Structure formats: structure tokens, C-alpha cells
């Protein structure tokens, strides 16, 4: 059951801006088992997509350090030829924006068939077409024979996202990375797409990395969750623990800023400040420190590392032990809130 599929160790992805390298993904260590959904949450700019692209080797000019062990083999910095055998076959990705992820000049059927051409060259043209129709059926597209010959602009956003999913699952990948698969879609379609992804997991026994900033999606889909902030994982645990006993200040702030349907909250929590841009990332110390200035500086570790608080529950930095929300405590330190 819990057979390990992917192990990422100390992954660091950096981009060169001018003379220097800036890490968009820094010291990420994660594992993913078969038939498991690992959710990755974080704000925009926290490095979620950069992480996903690193796994797929889709970055054009990035320096990648660390290990990505996929099925027992390190695929970080592999030659493109070798990587191309994996991509689209053993590992596949669902993209964020269905409106731009498809080639506007190619019939959607051909775009799905391309994945088969690349990895199942022994398939006859007839079988290939039948498989594409089958895939279109699987992702819930009505009149697949007709849709096969249509162009992306003739389909709605939800339909296009289904086509993108059909491309990703065409070869039954063992690892499926879904990068905000529902962000561009409206809520009713979201639910259908999530159902679809869940069924795929069950049918194909694949490991899924689900990237989102939507905690609702995480609660519904994920088995385990990794919270990402400023390129680093700040907390990892199973989904129940994360929602019931969040530790890291960032995780707690995120959960606190979700509106509660039952009421009881007058005001939504707002996390002070914004995610620092790549060039302004703090190079040392706790990266979240600048957004919780009321917490005493001594609470942070000098070089924050992941601590295993309970089996399978990891938190970065020690600041969680002294963290409180400013409105929770009467004794807000004088140098605190105003210090931002």
C-alpha cells in the first residue's frame, strides 16, 4: 500500500538574475507514496509551481541541486532524452490554465494522441484514435467523436481542462502532478474535476501531487499536506493533523484566514505583508519572521530546520512554540505590532 514512489531530498532550484542565483525552491524534502495524494499549499509566489516544474524538469534555465528519486532513480539534472521517456509516460502534469495550455492550432484529439505517439509508437492509428475517444469519455466529455476534431477555442474552460487532464493521464502515469487544476474554473466544474482526479487515483493507483492555494480543495482531496512558504516547506503532516493541530505560524495564519461558514468570526485574519519577491528573500533565519514581527526574535532558530514534532508531523523553525495571534493575547509586546 504505502510503497514509496517519489523521494525529494534537499531540492534547491535557483534562477540566475544578473550575476547571482536566487533560490525559488529551497531545501525541499518530501516523499510521496503510491495511491497517495500529497497536497502542497501556499500563497502565490511561494514556489509551488517552481517545485512542480523542477520535478518535471520543465525549467529552462534553472540550477537544480539535490535529489529527485523517482522509482529509485535520481532524475534531477537528467539528460533531456532520458527525461522525455519519463515525461508524459511515467510522470505527467496537469496545468493551471486550461485556456493557454493547449495548442490553438491543433485539434484536441491530435493533442491527446501526441502523447500516445510519443510513448506508444507500436499502437496502430486506429487503436490510438479509439484510446483518445476512450480518454475523452473517461474525463467526462460528451460526444467525444465530435470533440476529437474540434479546436481548443471551440471548447469551454472546463472542457479544455478535461482535455488537459486527458493528455496527462493518457499513458496512466504513476506520478501525476496537478498544478492548481481548478483555479481557472468555476465552483461546480471544480467539484467535477476533483472527482475526476480522485477516481483516477483509485483506478490507476498513482501518486498525486496536488498543488493549490485552496484549503478547501486540500481538505477534500489530500492524504498528506505540505505547506510551502517562500520556497521552503514549513510544515508537513497528514491532513487531519494539519487542520486540527497546525503548528507553524504560517499554517495557523493560513487556516485562520479562511472564512468560516458557521460564523463566529467577526473579522478574517489577515497575514501582514506579502510574500517577499525572489530577490528579496531572506537568505538566513526564519523566512516568516518578517510577517510576525510581534513574536520575539529569539523564538526563531538561526538556521531553521525541520523538526519532527510527532511521527510524520514536521515543522520548520522553533518559532511555533512561542507563536500567538496578536488579538489573542492581551500582552502584545510594545515593540511588536508597530515594528512592521
Amino acid at each position, binding site marked *: 500500500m504505502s510503497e514509496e514512489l517519489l523521494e525529494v531530498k534537499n531540492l534547491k532550484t535557483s534562477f540566475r538574475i544578473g550575476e547571482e542565483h536566487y533560490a525559488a525552491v529551497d531545501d525541499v524534502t518530501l516523499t510521496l507514496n503510491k495511491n497517495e495524494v500529497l497536497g502542497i499549499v501556499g500563497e502565490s509566489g511561494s514556489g509551488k509551481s517552481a517545485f512542480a516544474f523542477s520535478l*518535471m524538469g*520543465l525549467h529552462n534555465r534553472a540550477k537544480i541541486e539535490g535529489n529527485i528519486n523517482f522509482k529509485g532513480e535520481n532524475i534531477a539534472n537528467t539528460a*533531456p*532524452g532520458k*527525461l*522525455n*521517456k*519519463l*515525461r*508524459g*509516460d511515467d510522470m*505527467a*502534469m496537469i*496545468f493551471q*490554465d486550461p485556456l*493557454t*495550455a*493547449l*495548442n*490553438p*492550432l*491543433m485539434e484536441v484529439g491530435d*493533442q491527446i494522441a*501526441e*502523447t500516445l505517439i*510519443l*510513448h506508444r509508437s507500436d499502437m496502430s492509428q486506429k487503436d490510438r484514435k479509439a484510446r483518445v475517444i476512450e480518454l475523452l469519455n473517461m474525463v467526462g466529455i460528451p460526444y467525444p467523436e465530435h470533440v476529437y476534431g474540434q*479546436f481548443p*477555442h471551440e471548447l469551454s474552460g472546463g472542457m479544455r481542462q478535461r482535455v*488537459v487532464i486527458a*493528455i*496527462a493521464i493518457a499513458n496512466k502515469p504513476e506520478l501525476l502532478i496537478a498544478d492548481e487544476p481548478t483555479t481557472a474554473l468555476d465552483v461546480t466544474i471544480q467539484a467535477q474535476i476533483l472527482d475526476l482526479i480522485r477516481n483516477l487515483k483509485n483506478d490507476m493507483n498513482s501518486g498525486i501531487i496536488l498543488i493549490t492555494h485552496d484549503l478547501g480543495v486540500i481538505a477534500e482531496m489530500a492524504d498528506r499536506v505540505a505547506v510551502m512558504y517562500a520556497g521552503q516547506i514549513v510544515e508537513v503532516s497528514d491532513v487531519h493533523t494539519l487542520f486540527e493541530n497546525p503548528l507553524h505560524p504560517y499554517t495557523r495564519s493560513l487556516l485562520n484566514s479562511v472564512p468560516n461558514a458557521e460564523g463566529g468570526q467577526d473579522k478574517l485574519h489577515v497575514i501582514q505583508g506579502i510574500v517577499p519577491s525572489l530577490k528579496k528573500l531572506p537568505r538566513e533565519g526564519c523566512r516568516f519572521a518578517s510577517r510576525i514581527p510581534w513574536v520575539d526574535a529569539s523564538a526563531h532558530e538561526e538556521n531553521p530546520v525541520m523538526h519532527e514534532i510527532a511521527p510524520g508531523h514536521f515543522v520548520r523553525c522553533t518559532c511555533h512554540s512561542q507563536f500567538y495571534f496578536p488579538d489573542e493575547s492581551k500582552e502584545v509586546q510594545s515593540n511588536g505590532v508597530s515594528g512592521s
Partner: protein
Amino acid sequence: MWKFIVRRLIITFPQLVVLSVLVFLAAQFMPGDALTGSIGNPNITAEQLEQRREALGLNDPWYVRYGDWVSGVVQGDLGESYRFKMPVTELIGQRIVNSFWLSVVTLIFTYIIAVPLGILSGRYNDSLLDQSITGYTYVGFATPLFIFALVMLWIFGYQFGWFPTNGSVEPGLTPGTFDYVLSKLYHLILPGISMALIATVNTVQYLRSEIIDTKQRDFIITARAKGAPESRVYNRHILRNSLLPIAAFFGFEITGLIGGTIFVETIFSYPGMGQLFLESVTLRDFSTLVSVVLLFGVTAIGGALLSDIILSLVDPRIRIK
């Protein structure tokens, strides 16, 4: 599909009418009229002139004269050239064929140069190769065609003597023979290349920026994520999407050639429409000038029409079912 083309053709009609009115009215502001050149007798009196004018209908209001002119044009009667003393239709006949072949040769050279350079430049952007190619395009943008054509003529026509320096064919050859065709081609190469080397820089730059733009589109990442090797990513996804606007630009390329032929034909003494245009301006050959300008205008409208039709054929987003 056909609906689109028919609709597009219908739009062309008012364009042609407006063009012809403008050309006709502009001609009215030129000094002299259709009679000026045909007076052979210097002793003719003002009354006699006026009589002739009246008889020829030159004193009618402009719209009546316009009507006469247009009905002539539609029947292929462009009037009489009073400099060459022959019908304009006949005068234009051979030249239009010459200009047509010059344009064809120029277009072929233009694309032979533009497509590979644009692709290399776009694919390996910011490399040394790309910088050399863009360097060339900047030189091309900055160099006036008539200077460049003169330099080409001087170097390859006079210094090396590789190409003929004037005319459209070796005199004394019988039309239709193989030697005749060969000689025609030979005369076309130098003016064609000269014009293409300058005209192509637009297309090179255009293609380059299209490729750089397409390279960064999301569906290219989708293609890579499918496991498509770079060669396939380029051939199937990037080139197809980048060449589309280039194909659509083809019609406008034709329009752009008109200006080029005026210089190049004059410099290479190549008997085509461009040379005829300049001649008729300097000779004040009223009816010829009007006809040439009208034909230039028709070509421009036709170029735009062609562009739209090509685009509708190749781009599924515009294709109307």
C-alpha cells in the same frame, strides 16, 4: 468558409470605388488635361481648343467625366498615352508582366532568406548567431533601398560584370524560346535579390519575435511535459504557430513591393510598372499615370484581400464554418 470569402470580396467593392474616385480626383488637380499632349498644331487658337474640349466632354462636371472614365476602365480602355502615342492598355501590357515576374522572384528570395534566418534567430535568441542576424536586419532597416540597389548594381553589374545592368531580356531573342526565358530570369536575379535583401528584414524580425513569443507560451510547456523532444516541439508546435502570421502577412508583402519596384526598376532600367510610373510623372503623361496609380491601388487592395483569405484558410480560430 466560402461565406467569409464572399463577404470579404463584397467589402472589396466599395474600396475599389473609393480608390477610383480618389485617383480620378487627384488627377484633376494635375496641371493640364487630356488634351494638353495631343495638340499637334502650335497655332491652334483658344476658341478651337475650347471647341475640342467641349466635343471631348472635358467641360462636363467631374462626375460625368468620372462615369465616362470608369466605364472605359471597366471595358479595359485606359485611354491614350499622349507621350507614347499608343493606348495605355497596350503600353502597360508588357510592363505589367515584367513587374509581375520581378515581384515573384523578389518574393521567392524574400522567403528563402527570411524563413531560415528568422527561425535560427528566434530559436537561438541572444546567441551570437542571433545577434549577427538582428545586426543584418538593423542594417537593412537603415539602408534606403535605392542606395543599396545602386551599390549592388555597381558591384555585381559593373565591377564583376556578373549580371546585366539594364533591360528585361537580351535583345534579339525570340519570345517563347528557352534562351529567351533564361535571359529573362538572368535579368531578374540582381534586381530581385537587391529588393529581397532589404524587404526581407521585416519578415526576419517578425518571424523572430513570433518564435520567441510562441516559445514562452504555455502550450509549449504542455508539449514538453508530454515528453516531446525539442525537434518535435519546434516543428509541430512552435513553427506552425509562428509561421501563421507570416503566411498571413504575404498579401501585405505584395503591397510593400510596389514601392520597391519603383526604385529598383528605375535603377536597373527594367521596363516595368514602377519605371513607367516615374516616367509618366516626369513626362506628365496624364492618362498613363492615372492608370498606373489605379493598378497600384488595386494591387494593394488585392494584397490585403489575399492576406485575409490566407489567414482564414490557415487559422482555425478565424475559419468560419
